[in-house]
């Protein structure tokens, strides 16, 4: 899968910019705050319809403008070529177009373009708050499954309503007789999420272990495990998970009413990372945490390739300077010549000569992209 054309209009600091990337390595260089990351962000936004840097779409619109437009053309091995377009507005709802046809459901865009982004924030995912690891799960699984994206949207809405109800009951009392109906809705959506997360983390687990082994020259072994808030067992159906989730909610009823908030469910999941039996979330060295994050991202590239049937686009957002030479070479070994890659950096010095030789270099200056 590769992108042949990107068009940005009033996106972040760009006014009207067309970029025609090369089929393999694209190196985007420039000083800080010129728009390198914004270009990568635009590609990622076309992947999931949401930015990885902000939850507010209006942040993406150029200051002083009412709307922004991002579009790209994609060439795929197994499907027809596709044009994707997102129009963001300060006053109206987001519009998505696939092959110039408007789609009323924004989620339809998800899965059209597959990309894996690796930014400096991802390097701190392992030691960060569990919410960052859940965010990772949501973004990545949504790319793979429309069903997951649908369940996640439904789950969030039900959770909001159910929490509003629990809060009212705590503050004002009243009848809790609508809770079972909300429980049924929460567990129907939540069990789909739990099942997908279980499968996703277990597949990542077997892919990340050998990569981490390589990264550390065979000296350390990584294990990652899904830590679901509601227990999930192997080969369990969504219905079985939903039944256990419902029981957990009934058991937690008194606690939920006392606290006025939902205490059970995938909004409290986590992933654990252990190296040689030690939990690196809390006890790992910075080097171990970075290697684990890198192994996870590289595993994800492989997983997307397995599940989608062709390699995803790889976005390396300013991570070159953060990685040592050894780790950098592993990244290139796994992606160079295989995945179309966009790598941003302040200068070209972090790229090995063979990568530079096959790369297209773009220089970004004050919101303008020039092919070198």
């Amino acid at each position, binding site marked *: 899968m590769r992108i042949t054309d990107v068009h940005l209009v009033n996106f972040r600091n760009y006014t009207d910019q067309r970029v025609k990337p090369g089929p393999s390595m694209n190196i985007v260089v420039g000083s800080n705050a010129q728009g390198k990351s914004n270009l990568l962000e635009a590609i990622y936004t076309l992947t999931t319809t949401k930015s990885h840097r902000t939850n507010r779409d209006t942040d993406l619109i150029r200051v002083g403008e009412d709307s922004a437009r991002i579009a790209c053309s994609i060439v795929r091995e197994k499907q027809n070529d596709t044009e994707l377009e997102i129009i963001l507005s300060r006053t109206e709802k987001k519009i998505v177009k696939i092959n110039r046809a408007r789609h009323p459901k924004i989620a*339809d865009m998800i899965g059209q373009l597959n990309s894996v982004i690796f930014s400096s924030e991802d390097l701190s995912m392992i030691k960060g708050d569990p919410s960052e690891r859940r965010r990772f799960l949501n973004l990545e699984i949504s790319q793979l499954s429309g069903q997951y994206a*649908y369940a996640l949207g439904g789950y969030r809405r039900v959770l909001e*309503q159910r929490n509003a109800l629990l809060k*009212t009951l705590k503050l004002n009392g*009243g009848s809790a007789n609508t809770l*079972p109906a909300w429980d049924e809705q929460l567990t129907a959506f939540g069990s789909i999420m739990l099942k997908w997360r279980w499968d996703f983390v277990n597949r990542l687990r077997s892919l990340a272990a050998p990569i981490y082994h390589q990264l550390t020259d065979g000296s350390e072994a990584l294990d990652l495990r899904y830590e679901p808030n509601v227990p999930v067992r192997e080969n369990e159906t969504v219905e079985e998970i939903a039944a256990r989730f419902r029981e957990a909610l009934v058991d937690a009823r008194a606690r939920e009413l006392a606290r006025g908030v939902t205490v059970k469910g995938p909004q409290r999941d986590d992933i654990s990372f252990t190296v040689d039996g030690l939990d690196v979330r809390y006890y790992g060295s910075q080097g171990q945490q970075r290697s684990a994050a890198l192994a996870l991202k590289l595993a994800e590239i492989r997983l997307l390739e397995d599940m989608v049937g062709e390699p995803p686009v790889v976005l390396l957002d300013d991570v070159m300077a953060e990685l040592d030479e050894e780790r950098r070479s592993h990244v290139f070994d796994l992606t160079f010549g295989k995945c179309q890659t966009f790598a941003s950096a302040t200068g070209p010095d972090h790229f090995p000569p063979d990568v530079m030789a096959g790369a297209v270099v773009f220089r970004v200056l004050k919101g303008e992209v020039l092919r070198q």
Partner: protein
Amino acid sequence: MHYAKPLARLVGELEKLPGVGPKSAQRLAFHILRASEEEARMLSDSIIDVKTSISMCKICFNFTDQETCDICRDPKRDRSIICVVAEPRDLVAMEKTNEYHGLYHVLQGVISPMEGVGPDQLKIRELVGRLAQGEVREIILATNPTIEGDTTALYISRELRRDLPEAEIKISRIAHGMPVGGDLDYADQATLIQAMQWRREM
């Protein structure tokens, strides 16, 4: 913008209406200003009239200008079946089909804790009361297939099953899924997932 005071007031009032922005409000206000006094009075009278003479049907809570609505009074209607909808406009949509000949029950909303709407704010107790009279054999829950509409339908079906365990009442939910004449290729994923979930045997 500089309007004479009475005109500014009219524009301001019109802007409060749903779907009317500043531009439309201005256009409507100028239209009213140019119309004859008689036309303007007909409009203002009809607004007052609708507020003073329309109330809710004592039985089904549809809008009516009498004690009970035309549908509840119609002797040709099938009294053994009730279609439960959220809003009067949903009833109007259903009536347009000319295919349904039972009675209705308008809940006047859906359960939404975020907006402070619980079962007590809706006409659910009144629905249970209607069923207790024993004439009804089937309930069709026709709230919208949204999170809140689905939850409301779930809640009502649970309540009815609990309150009327021995009564032989069939409770059904309207089907969700592909629109008629729809194209699978163009359907959004949520709709396709629902259509698969609610499939039926042939």
